[in-house]
Each structure stands twice: as structure tokens, then as C-alpha cells.
């Protein structure tokens, strides 16, 4: 399946919620969409395009906004599909995909705690990798790691 | 060899007279009185039995470790003592010194009483097991029954210590242990009934004398299979080691025990394994006797009975180790189902076969098989 085919199937169903379909090496394409249309898009992608297996959900912090991306696989097409949406950094939230693909559950929990994107209507949005009550989102660019030298100084004074 | 009791009586007697010769006459009479001598003799008897049992049990652990190492393509304990012979002594001393931590919410009495009673009751069995021809220890007519009765105490104490540990894994292990031991007690005893039928006695000495011409493993092979399987379950060894299944219950019912009380458990497990092996040898493999075709030189040297008995015991235990090295563990429900649905019918069959053997002994066709005892 080529990006053009994707656009032909998706645009009538989604309208202006679909921002565009770009080619992506090694995949069927990269679908950009508005976050308001997330659930509609997921359903269309799963039911009409047969991408039944959601592999990965992740987030990228672009400082001014954050990007959430989804990778889905279709057993009949034997192809991957990349879906991505931008969310503003002030209000980082998007609809949860776990009602469409249950496998999104843990990936979204991870994205929430590491990248700081909240997922609406997620069944169980708890900390997964970091301890309960951990207040930071480590994968944001504003979160700086300790330098080794810094650490030396610190432990010497402890 | 004379009976062990008469040996210890002799020692006691000698000590009493030696003491009496240096004491004033009033004390001498008291010491040389038969009651005191007998009491001393019993004490010495107990000490000898205890020492022999302990050394044998520890050697059994060494034997298992080395054998298991060979099965696994490695060399097990090597560096403490010659070929690791002292390894288990080191373990024992270390555990002796190590602290025992009682969990805060554990029941104090049960926590300490359980392992102690478990070990003591298992040690008691050795007071009545004969290991060579002169070893009529107390000469009770019902030694076999008594041994098995004491052997059956164990689930109670395991359950007490598991319950009082106040640990979920211990509790589950204790539950499993109690269920398993009670389920396998029945086929174990029925298999013994087969032996008793053929031998015509509950006395272990008589049972061995009965086997001087033919060992019971041949005619009573079904009973042997049932007995060994049930014994494996009673000893809690793989494939029936569910109560201490390391994979799901951390260490089973001894999870909370460390130090000396853990040593009690470990020691008693092997003690029970020794009892199991000894019983298999006594009931089915002719005890200390050898087949008649063996040249008499093999049986005539001093202590020959004990030597052959130990050789057989260690070989039987080696077979248990072999089973352990090559079989996976079964599940609780499967174990219990096998116990109630397969083992008990099989053991009843073995009783039936034993009855046939008894009849065959006196059928004119076969001629009366010669028997020595009764």
C-alpha cells in the first residue's frame, strides 16, 4: 500500500482532521492527523485498513510542542504504518488508543510518565517504570541529566 | 556381631565397675546396681545411634551433591576437605552460628517447636531400625509399624512451623505438604501390608530373615513401585517436592527459617530420605543379606552385614538422586489425583498379588518355597 492509497481511503472519512500522508522509508506511510480525530482515525486504520496490531506508542518532545506517534502493523498487507499527531506543550493530551487496540495500554502509560503526554479515557493511567509519585517527565528536553563530575562533588558532600 | 544394645550394656557395665572401684562402698553399690547400669546402657545406646545417624545423614548429603554434580556434568563440592567431604560439616557449623530471625508476627512457640519436634521425631525412628543381624534394638514385635507411625508425624510439625511462620509462602507450602503426605500415607501403608502378608510379621528382623532365600522385590514388584513412589512423595523430593517448590514458593515452608532451625529442616529432610532408603532395603532388597550364590568370603568378614546394608542403602538413595536429576516437578492437583486415583488401586493390587504369593508358597505345584523365619 502506498501513501496515495492511504490518503484515498482516509481523507473521505476524516476530512480536515487528516493533515496529510507522507512517504516513509520501510513503511506504508506516515499519517499526520489532528488530535481531535484520533479515535476516528484509529478505528478506520484498524477496521478498514486492517492494521490490527499496534506495535508501539511513543512521544517526542520538540520543546514548543510534543509529538505522539503510533506504529501499527497489518498482517494482510505485511506493512507498518506510522501515525503521528502534534499536541501543544501547554495542554499535552490526546485520546487513548487502548479502546481500539488494548495493546496500547502500557505503551501509553510509559509515554505519559516519560514524555508527559496525558491520555484521555485511559483505563489505568498509573506509573509504570518510575516510582509512584515521581514528579518529573524525564524524556522532556528540559530535564537535564547529572554530569559525572557533578555527581562526584555531590557524593563527596553527602 | 552382638546386638548393639549388649555392646552398649557392656560399655556401661565396664564404666560402672571402673567408677565403683574408686568410689566409697556406699556409692559403689548404688552405681553398680542394675538399674543404673541399664539406664547408662540406654544412654550410650542412644548416643551411638545418634552419632551414626548424623554422620550417615551428612554423608548422604555429600553423596547426593557429588552424584548430582556428575549427572549435571560438573563436579559439585570440591574444595573443603578431600573431595568436599567436609563441606556439609562446614555448612552445619555455619548454620549453627548463624542468627535465627523470628518474624515479628510469628507465633513464638510454634516457630521454634515445629522444626525441633520434626527433627526429634524423625531421629527416633533410628532407635528401632535394625541394620544388621544382631541389631535387635529393643526387640519389639511391631518395629515396622512403630517406625511408620513415627514417620507419619512429620506433616503435623511441618504444618505447625509453616502456620506459625506467618508467611504466605510458608503457609501454602505447609498446606501442600500436609495434603501430600496424608494422601501418600495410605498407599505407603498398603504397600507395606503386602510385605507383611508375605513375611508374616511386623518385625523388621523377621522380614529380613524371610528374605534370605529370595528378596521380596521380585514377587512384590508392584508393591515396590508403589512404595518407592509414595516414599518419594513422603520425602518431598523431585518430582514430588511441591511443598518447597523453589520456582513458585520461595523456599516453601522453611522460607522464614534461617540458622539452626533451617539446619534442622535440611538435616531432617535427608534423615527422612535415609529412612526411606533404609526401609526400601529392609522390605524389598533383603536387608543385610546377600543372595545365596555370593561366595561366603563376601559375607564373612567382620561387620559384613553393616557394610552390605550401607552399600545397598546408598545405592537406593543414588537411584532417588537419579530420579531427582531427570524428572520435572508435578503440580499439586496432579499429585493428589495420582495419589488417590492411581496409587491406592495399585497398592490394593499389590496386596492381592501378595496374597497370591502367600498361596503359591504352599501350592504343591511349586513346592513350598523354603522360609526360615516364623
Amino acid at each position, binding site marked *: 500500500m502506498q501513501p496515495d492509497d492511504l490518503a484515498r481511503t482516509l481523507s473521505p472519512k476524516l476530512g480536515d482532521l487528516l493533515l496529510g500522508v507522507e512517504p516513509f522509508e520501510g513503511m506504508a506511510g506516515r499519517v499526520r492527523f489532528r488530535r481531535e480525530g484520533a479515535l476516528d482515525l484509529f478505528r478506520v486504520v484498524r477496521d478498514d485498513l486492517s492494521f490490527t496490531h499496534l*506495535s508501539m506508542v511513543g512521544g517526542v518532545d520538540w520543546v514548543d510542542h510534543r509529538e505522539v506517534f503510533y506504529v501499527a502493523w497489518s*498482517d494482510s498487507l505485511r506493512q507498518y504504518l506510522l501515525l503521528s499527531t502534534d499536541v501543544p506543550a501547554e495542554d499535552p493530551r490526546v485520546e487513548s488508543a487502548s479502546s481500539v487496540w488494548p495493546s496500547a495500554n502500557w*505503551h501509553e502509560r510509559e509515554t505519559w510518565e516519560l514524555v508527559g503526554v496525558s491520555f484521555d479515557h485511559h483505563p489505568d493511567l498509573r506509573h509504570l*517504570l518510575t516510582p509512584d509519585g515521581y514528579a518529573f517527565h524525564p524524556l522532556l528536553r528540559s530535564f537535564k*541529566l547529572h554530569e*559525572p563530575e557533578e555527581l562526584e562533588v555531590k557524593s563527596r558532600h553527602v | 556381631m552382638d546386638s548393639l544394645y549388649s555392646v552398649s550394656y557392656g560399655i556401661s557395665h565396664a564404666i560402672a565397675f571402673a567408677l565403683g572401684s574408686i568410689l566409697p562402698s556406699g556409692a559403689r553399690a548404688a552405681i553398680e546396681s542394675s538399674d543404673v547400669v541399664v539406664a547408662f546402657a540406654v544412654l550410650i545406646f542412644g548416643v551411638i545411634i545418634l552419632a551414626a545417624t548424623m554422620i550417615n545423614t551428612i554423608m548422604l548429603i555429600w553423596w547426593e551433591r557429588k552424584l548430582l554434580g556428575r549427572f549435571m556434568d560438573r563436579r559439585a563440592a570440591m574444595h573443603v576437605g578431600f573431595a568436599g567431604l567436609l563441606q556439609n560439616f562446614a555448612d552445619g557449623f555455619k548454620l549453627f552460628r548463624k542468627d535465627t530471625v523470628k518474624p515479628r508476627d510469628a507465633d513464638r512457640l510454634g516457630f521454634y517447636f515445629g522444626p525441633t519436634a520434626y527433627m526429634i521425631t524423625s531421629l527416633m525412628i533410628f532407635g528401632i531400625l535394625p541394620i544388621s543381624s544382631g541389631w535387635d534394638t529393643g526387640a519389639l514385635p511391631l518395629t515396622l509399624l512403630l517406625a511408620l507411625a513415627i514417620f507419619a508425624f512429620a506433616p503435623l510439625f511441618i504444618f505447625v512451623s509453616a502456620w506459625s511462620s506467618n508467611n504466605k509462602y510458608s503457609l501454602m507450602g505447609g498446606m501442600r505438604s500436609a495434603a501430600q503426605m496424608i494422601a501418600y500415607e495410605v498407599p505407603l501403608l498398603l504397600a507395606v501390608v503386602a510385605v507383611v502378608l508375605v513375611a508374616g510379621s511386623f518385625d523388621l528382623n523377621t522380614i529380613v530373615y524371610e528374605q534370605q532365600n529370595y528378596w521380596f522385590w521380585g514377587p512384590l514388584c508392584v508393591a515396590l513401585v508403589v512404595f518407592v513412589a509414595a516414599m518419594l512423595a513422603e520425602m518431598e523430593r523431585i518430582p514430588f517436592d511441591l511443598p518447597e517448590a523453589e*520456582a513458585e514458593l520461595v523456599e516453601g515452608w522453611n522460607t522464614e527459617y534461617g540458622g539452626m532451625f533451617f539446619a534442622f529442616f535440611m538435616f531432617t529432610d535427608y534423615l527422612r530420605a535415609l529412612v526411606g532408603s533404609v526401609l526400601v532395603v529392609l522390605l524389598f532388597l533383603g536387608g543385610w543379606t546377600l543372595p545365596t550364590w555370593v561366595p561366603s568370603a563376601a559375607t564373612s568378614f567382620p561387620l559384613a552385614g553393616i557394610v552390605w546394608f550401607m552399600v545397598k542403602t546408598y545405592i537406593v538413595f543414588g537411584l532417588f538422586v537419579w530420579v531427582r536429576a531427570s524428572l520435572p516437578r*508435578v503440580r499439586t492437583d496432579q499429585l493428589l489425583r495420582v495419589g488417590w486415583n492411581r496409587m491406592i488401586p495399585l497398592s490394593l493390587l499389590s496386596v492381592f498379588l501378595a496374597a497370591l504369593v502367600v498361596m503359591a508358597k504352599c501350592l504343591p505345584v511349586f513346592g513350598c518355597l523354603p522360609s526360615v523365619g516364623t
Partner: protein
Amino acid sequence: MSEMWINMGPQHPMTHGLWNLRVKIDGERILDVDPEMGYLHRGIEKISEDRHYNEVVTLMDRSCYVAGLNWEHLYILASEQALHISPPERAEYIRMMCAEFQRIGSHIMWYAAFVQDIGLMTPFLYGMRDRDLVLDLFQSFTGARMTYEYMRVGGVRNDLPPPFLAQARKVLDWLVPRFKEYDELCIGSDIFHKRCDNLGVLSASECVRHGVTGPMLRSAGLKRDLRKDRPYSMYRDVDFDVALADGADVTGRYLVRMEEMRQSIRILRQVLDWLEHHPGPVMADQLPRWLGAPYAPVGKEGYVLKRNYAKGVGFSSIEEPHGEAQAYVVNEGSERPYRVKFRSPVFANISAARQYLVGYRVADIPPIMGSVDPCIGEVDR
């Protein structure tokens, strides 16, 4: 006993790593489970943002410590796509050989751990013995037993030493009868079937719904193997079959993994033949010099090399021993990746734990979780 929650982990013989399975039980029956992860969360994705492309390879080895080379392969494929670099053919073959040997090593490690879960003691030792032979092979050309740091963007670090091929063939010849022995100890035993048949069943549709991949998925009869479906490296050129089983249970997963090892040997024989007859370079010629730059702490002025290199996003997906692993690398034109995201197969496989554990018994937890082959390093990253 009434219903109660028990914690299996983080220190528990069942876990094979550092995680906690909270189990709600009624007697011996499992009513609910709740895996708790993150005890080994080392922030690999965050540290990667501070490292050069080649330095991230170090973290990949530690990410999945039983399949280090597979994870290096995964990361290198994605970053080569992001950096628009293509490696020479011989390097691709060497990587494929590494991946297949690592698959054998990982599966043997799985076998050793799994048989312990069902109470078999001896095969653990046999497994470790045979795995050491595979690790010896790795040691002969990477210098390390577990953490190799062997692959580079644009190729591999060094070529194979001359005696390697003969040695590798010898190891393969040794392994073939060993697999038969493994089977005799497990499949040949009635108790194994009693324990493992119809256990931890997860049907193919449930697998797809919950994102379960790898041997667990193939044991359900669904033929999905990225080496066939979406060939990467040189898998298009080698001849092999996808291991399949039916039943979707623990026995099925066992059979799939054993068959995969045999297929790996089949692949390896072809690859070794190819490597013998096709000498050549193992590193791409036209590499930007900063790929080999030394580690420079962030924030030190003058050290940071700001280069405007072509931006790009790389995505790779490989069939790791545990399942389907993916990497997503964002290249923003600097010498460090802007964002690295990994998808761990075990992460998804464990997340479906409730589907394949509830309803069985406590004694079934170790074999079922053992058949998942949890490698916590890659789950928590």
C-alpha cells in the same frame, strides 16, 4: 484460605529478573494479576540523547543482556536509516550471523531458565554448558562474552578472525545432537506434558489484540516472522522456514523455540558459506568523521560539534529472540540522536499477563512466565 494478594518479586525465583508480579489468589487458583515493572528502569532512552550514535551501542548490549547483538542490530539499522548510511554487504552478513548466533544463545538461556521453573535441574546445567560455547565464539571476534559493542553505524567494528569459520561450524555440529537431548529431557517426559499442555493459552486473535509477538504468537499458529515478512539485512537471500506450532500453550512455545534454533543453524550454515567466499570491507567508506568522535560531556563549550547533517527519522523492526523489537531514531542533524525510542517485545508480552495467567494455578505461574521469556532489561530500559 480466603482471597489474598501475594507479591512474587522483585526477589523471587520465578521472576528471572527484577519485576514484581502481584497475584490475587484463592487457595491455589489465580484470580487476578498485576505486573509491576520499572525496577530496572535505567533511563537508556534518556542517556542515549547525550551520547554519540556509536556510543549508544554500549547501552544496547545492556538493554537486553541475553540478546545484546540483536539489539545492537536493531539500533544500528534504525540509525543508519536516520543518517542515510548504507553498510557494505559483508557487514550485513556478519550482522546476520551475529543475530542468529545470538538467537541460539538467547534461546538456550531461555531453555536453561525455563526448565528450572518446572523443576528440572539437570538441563539448566546442560543449557549453560552449551551456551558458553556460543559465547566463546562471540568472544573470539568481539572480545566479550555478553556486552560486545561490536556493531557500528556503517558496518561492524572488525572482520572475523581466520579460524572463526571452522570453529563456528564445529559448534554448530556439536549443538545439533544437543537439541535432540534437550527434547528427550522435556518433550520425552510425560510429566512435562502434564505440566505444560494447555497451559497459559493465548489465542492468535488475543495475541494480536494485546500486541503479543514472537514465539508466543507463532505458537498460536499465526505465521508472522519479520525475517520473512519484511526482510531486513540479508534475510531475503537465505533459505529457512518459520517455526510454527499449534495449541498456543507452553508446550507450543517450547516447540517453536526449539525449532527456531534448528532453523537458525540452517541459516548460519548458509551465511558461513557465504562469508567464506566473499571477503571484503566491513565498514562503509564515506562516513562522517564525527561518528568516531570521542565522548564529550554535554555543556562543555567548544566540545559540542554542531554540524548540519541531513536530518532524518529512522525506523527499524527486527525479529528478536523474544519477539518483534522496534527502534525509532530521530536525527536532528547533530552528532547525537535527538530521540531514541525502543519497543521491547517482552514489554508487550508481559502487559498481556492477565490474559494468559488468570484461571490457572499458582504452580503454573513459573512455567507460563518462563515460556514468555522475560528479559527485564529491555522491558524497563
